[in-house]
């Protein structure tokens, strides 16, 4: 590098050779720079997208190889009662988890957006949940909610509530998973809302207060609209993650009891890597993709109407 700088800087006359022109061209450098990264993404991202589309029209068999079955996998999907249940559980979970996390994050971020004693401790406690993996989180919560020895049942007994079966109960398991994932994502929501709150200009709040608005009105009419871009981001981001729930279910209930926590991705995993129905699993994957696309599109469509952008 240094040599070439010196040569050109030295005012060496004449045109560069064809070879050097090529090596210095945008064409050559463009391809040289993008090739390694793009190769990885094509091989492990783009090719699999097409491949799994092809797989979804095939029946996989270990011995005889794959055979084309047309739309059979998709037809099976429509009539599979477990898929129906899985969609229902996924949507119930998402409908509880997303607003729950956003509300918890908003409340804590508003409370933390001020200089009071111990604020660093409060903030660090919230951030710490971001450092814990879904697996650690799930194991701790299985223990907290253990039906026989769990401390939550102990707390319940202290206030006169009967012992619950929690993750062993078909009617409660999904809600325990909602609780543990809200806990795990609160730190993330707090960080997003705190960053957005710090962008709210103090002058606007003061102006509203001078005009006679109480704190609640200022929050409703000034702060909340200014936070709406962050809220839209969180709603979309949390929803995409919620629709892909897997880790906590795999660890705590394996979809049980009685399929009560079978969500789409868990069923997909089970079909793909326990039953080795790659074709059917690919069809479920594309179906999941469709659901994510539709819900995200709706969120952006609604969001654009109610989101307030300052610029």
């Amino acid at each position, binding site marked *: 590098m240094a040599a*070439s700088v010196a040569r050109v800087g030295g005012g060496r006359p004449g045109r560069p050779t064809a070879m050097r022109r090529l090596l210095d061209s945008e064409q050559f450098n463009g391809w040289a720079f993008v090739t390694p*990264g*793009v190769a*990885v993404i094509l091989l492990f991202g783009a090719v699999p997208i097409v491949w799994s589309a092809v797989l979804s029209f095939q029946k996989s068999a270990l011995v005889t190889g794959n055979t084309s079955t047309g739309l059979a996998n998709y037809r099976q999907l429509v009539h599979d009662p477990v898929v129906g249940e899985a969609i229902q559980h996924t949507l119930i979970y998402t409908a509880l988890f997303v607003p729950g996390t956003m509300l918890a994050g908003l409340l804590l971020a508003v409370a933390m957006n001020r200089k009071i004693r111990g604020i660093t401790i409060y903030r660090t406690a919230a951030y710490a949940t*971001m450092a814990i993996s879904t*697996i*650690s989180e799930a194991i701790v919560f299985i*223990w907290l909610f253990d039906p026989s020895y769990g401390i939550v049942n102990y707390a319940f007994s202290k206030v006169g509530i009967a012992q619950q079966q929690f993750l062993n109960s078909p009617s409660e398991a999904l809600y325990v998973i909602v609780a543990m994932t809200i806990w795990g994502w609160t730190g993330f929501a707090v*960080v997003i809302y705190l960053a957005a709150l710090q962008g709210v200009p103090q002058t606007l709040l003061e102006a509203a207060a001078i005009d006679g608005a109480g704190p609640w009105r200022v929050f409703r009419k000034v702060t909340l609209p200014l936070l709406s871009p962050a809220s839209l981001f969180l709603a979309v981001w949390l929803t995409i993650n919620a629709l892909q729930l897997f880790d906590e279910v795999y660890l705590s209930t394996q979809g049980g009891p009685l399929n009560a926590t079978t969500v789409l991705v868990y069923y997909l995993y089970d079909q793909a890597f326990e039953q080795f129905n790659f074709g059917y699993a690919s069809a479920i*994957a594309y179906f999941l993709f469709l659901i994510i696309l539709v819900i995200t599109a709706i969120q952006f469509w609604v969001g654009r109407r109610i989101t307030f952008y300052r610029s």
Partner: protein
Amino acid sequence: MTATSAPARGGLRSADQDLNPHRRRRRLPFSPWHFVLLPATVVLLFPFLWLLVTSLETQSEALHFPPVLIPHTIRFANYSDALAAAPFVRFFVNSAVVAVTTVLCNLVLCTLAGYAFARFRFLGRTALFAVIMATLMVPFQVTMIPQFIITKWLGVHVLAGVGINHIGALILPNAATAFGIFFLRQFFRTLPLEYEESARVDGASRLTVLVRIVLPLATPCLATLAALTFLDSWNNFLWPLIAVTSTNQMTLPLGLATFQGAHDTEWNLLMAGNVMSLIPMLIVFFIAQRYFVRSVAATGLAGT
């Protein structure tokens, strides 16, 4: 001028505060927000605390109802028992190798590609970039089955080190991400062209310009990408679950999940293992807290 106007403004503001009825009404010696923050913090921290307490109890104390809130004797042997039952050090080393290598690969590959997409005009640029953006939208579940087949094939026919059941299989598919390329390209496009052009006039090669001129300006951006990639890699579970089955190639989340499956009633050992897999990340997190928080906030602000 300034000397007279500054006190005047200060005076105005304090008068303002006194007029505000909501401030005068407060007579608590501390902010009422503590009533929200203190219980919330207890809820946020209690799982960590209970995890630690259980990890120091004996088996009979852990399996006791009502729960033993304070262990009679601190049993550190749970930790050595857990270490004897599962190679947590190995899991940790695997996790660290995978996460650090993935971060380094991403920094290099995404910088190169992101810069080329931002600055160079070359045949097929638009089409390639469109394909990369398309992969960004597709969830991992759609690609994981072919990714598994491809990885298996690579291990058999190309290089065992990146095949199924080797930690290389956890690195290679994530060595570059569409998000990283997109993120850095957006940043590079905001930089003024003048520095790069003047370096080019001075005869620097395109790679020199990138390394010497552009990268120093991109340090905060690269730190953000590094922090996010690290968190993703460290916490990844589904792909390791599919790609790795032998214990000595497992990362911490997978190793911990397997340990839980084998010892699901020995809660004191399980919690000791859980504490050991949490501690490294908590330490990294607290040291680099500013970077992690800023990085997560940056994704939010970029999204809005």
